[in-house]
C-alpha cells in the first residue's frame, strides 16, 4: 500500500510518502530505492504532521464543509465519489472539457484537463476552500 503526505498532510512540496507491505516487498524496495530518498525536512515535517490530528480533521477530505459544497450533486452528470473514501479531487465529466478548462483559466480558476490523464471530456478538480469551491461552481454554471 502506497500513501502520500502530499494531500491531507499538506506536504506536497516536500515529496514524502510511505509504503506498507510484506517484509519481502519492503526489502525489495529498500534495494532499488534511491539512497537518502526522503530528505531531512521531509522527515521532520511528516512526523510533525502526524502530530497534529486537528489539522487533518480540517481538510476537505476529512469532513470539512468545503467537501459538501462541492458534492457531485451540485453538478449534473458528475461522477459520484463513494461516501466512505472521501476524495481530495473529483474527476467530472464535462462535455468539451478542454474548452471549458480554457475559459475557467481565464476566469482565474485552474483545473486539470482529464485528457492529460487519459480521460477526455473530463476535468479533474481539486477540492478547495468553501469560497473557491463556490466560485468554481458559479463559473461552471455560467459555461
Amino acid at each position, binding site marked *: 500500500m502506497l500513501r502520500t503526505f502530499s494531500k491531507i498532510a499538506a506536504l506536497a512540496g516536500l515529496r514524502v510518502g510511505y509504503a*506498507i507491505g510484506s517484509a519481502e516487498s519492503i526489502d525489495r524496495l529498500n534495494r532499488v530505492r534511491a539512497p537518502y530518498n526522503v530528505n531531512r525536512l521531509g522527515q521532520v515535517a511528516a512526523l510533525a*504532521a502526524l502530530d497534529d490530528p486537528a489539522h487533518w480533521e480540517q481538510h476537505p477530505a476529512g469532513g470539512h464543509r468545503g467537501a459538501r459544497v462541492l458534492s457531485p450533486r451540485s453538478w449534473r452528470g458528475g461522477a459520484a465519489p463513494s461516501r466512505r473514501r472521501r476524495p481530495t479531487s473529483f474527476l467530472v465529466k464535462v462535455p468539451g472539457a478542454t474548452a471549458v478548462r480554457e475559459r475557467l483559466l481565464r476566469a482565474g480558476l485552474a483545473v486539470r484537463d482529464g485528457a492529460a490523464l487519459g480521460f477526455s471530456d473530463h476535468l479533474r478538480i481539486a477540492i478547495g476552500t468553501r469560497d473557491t469551491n463556490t466560485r468554481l461552481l458559479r463559473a461552471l454554471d455560467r459555461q
Partner: protein
Amino acid sequence: MRQLWRPVVERITPYDAGKPLETLKRELGLDELIRLSANENPLGPSPRVVDAIRREASAVHLYPDGGSHRAAGCAQPPPPRAADARSSSATAPTSSSAWSRWPPSIPATRSWCRRRRSSPTPRSVTLAGARGATEPAGRLRDRPRRRAGAGHAPHQGGDPVLATQSGHHDHPAGAADEVPRGARSRSAAGRPRRGLPRLLRRPRLSQRDRAARPATRA
C-alpha cells in the same frame, strides 16, 4: 547517445507538470489564479510542520537518516501477540492481526510512535525476517540494523546518529559510512587510526554488541 541509453527510454513520455502558477498568472494577465488543478491542500501546512522545518533548517548540511528510521518506527503496528510470534517469519506482520487495525487513528499513531521510539530496531529486524535481539536503548537507539544474510547490502545511508546522549547532531555527514569495518575495530583497540580519526567520531559499540552483530559487510 543512442548507445548509452536503452531504446526503451525514448518511448517514455515525460511527465508534464504544467506551468508554474506565477507564470500562468503573468501570461493570462490575472491578479489572482486559484489552482484547483494540482490536488493540493487548500489549508496549507500545519503550524507544527512549519515549526519543525524551521528547527531542522540548521541541520541541512547533514545527510538525512537514509532509512527514515524514526518515521518507520512510528509506522510499525503493535507487536504481534505471543502466538503470532511463535510462527515467526512465515507470519510476517502483514498477515498478522496487527495490520488489521491499520490505519490507526492519528492519536493512536502517536502513542505507538512514543512506545516504539525507545527501541525501534528489534522490530525492524522482525520485519526483515531475521531473529531479533535486544539492544541497549538510548545511546544507540537509532542505529540502523544491518540485515543478516543479505548478500547484496542495500544502501543503508550514513548511520544516523539522531539521538546521542547529548542530543546533538554530531554525525560526520554520512562519511562514516565509508569507513571499513576493520578500521573501526583497530582504532577502538587503541591501534593506529590510519588517518581516519575524524571519521570515527561516532558512538562506540560495546564489545558485546560487536560480537553479537553479524559481519555482513565486505
